């Protein structure tokens, strides 16, 4: 099956700093999403981005499907950005897998 690797595993930032999180995947995919799990456990969908670039406020994401990686950019980080960021992918074979494969996540701590 597809392997998903995220880096770095942990990251500590000062408030206001920028960061880049990376997601590498081992095979071509039809579906790639980024999620944020906040310190209270809530999982929020940030981006659905199988290819190209999207921006939402201070967050943006780019997926280069041909090179099998995606990047999540966080600019001017805030303490509310703390939590775990997951990348998840899916490849639709002929019969479809019907499920996302999650990476192990990047734990981000933003200090005031």
């Amino acid at each position, binding site marked *: 099956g597809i392997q998903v690797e995220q880096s770095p595993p942990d990251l500590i930032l000062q408030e206001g700093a920028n960061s880049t999180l990376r997601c590498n995947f081992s095979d071509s995919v039809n*579906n790639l999403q980024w999620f944020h799990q906040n310190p209270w456990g809530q*999982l929020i969908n940030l981006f659905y981005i199988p290819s190209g670039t999207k921006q939402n406020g201070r967050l943006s994401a780019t997926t280069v499907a041909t090179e099998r990686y995606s990047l999540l950019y966080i600019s001017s980080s805030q303490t509310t950005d703390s939590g775990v960021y997951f990348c998840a992918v899916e490849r*639709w074979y002929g019969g479809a897998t*019907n499920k996302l494969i*999650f990476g*192990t996540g990047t734990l981000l701590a933003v200090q005031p």
Partner: protein
Amino acid sequence: NAGVTQTPKFRVLKTGQSMTLLCAQDMNHEYMYWYRQDPGMGLRLIHYSVGEGTTAKGEVPDGYNVSRLKKQNFLLGLESAAPSQTSVYFCASTTTSPSGGRGEQYFGPGTRLTVT
């Protein structure tokens, strides 16, 4: 639009007891999923459904059963709870993408289950 809701939010069971977790979504999504999340293990798929009346096994289905009698509801049952089932359980539902596959996935708030 409530999105994905889960009940209960917390539950403590004794070994051998049974319970049902309810997931409901009001977004008319076809696909629904049950995950468990344990420290250091990430999210693991238990069961999923591709539409009303259908269910399928995920990575860790043993000890769980599911039903999808109505499109908006997906129930997860534990027939005889074991301490190894202590976990946080998340339900999710997924849109259908323009190309016909799965689109964005939305999660419920989670249920924290402790089995003593």
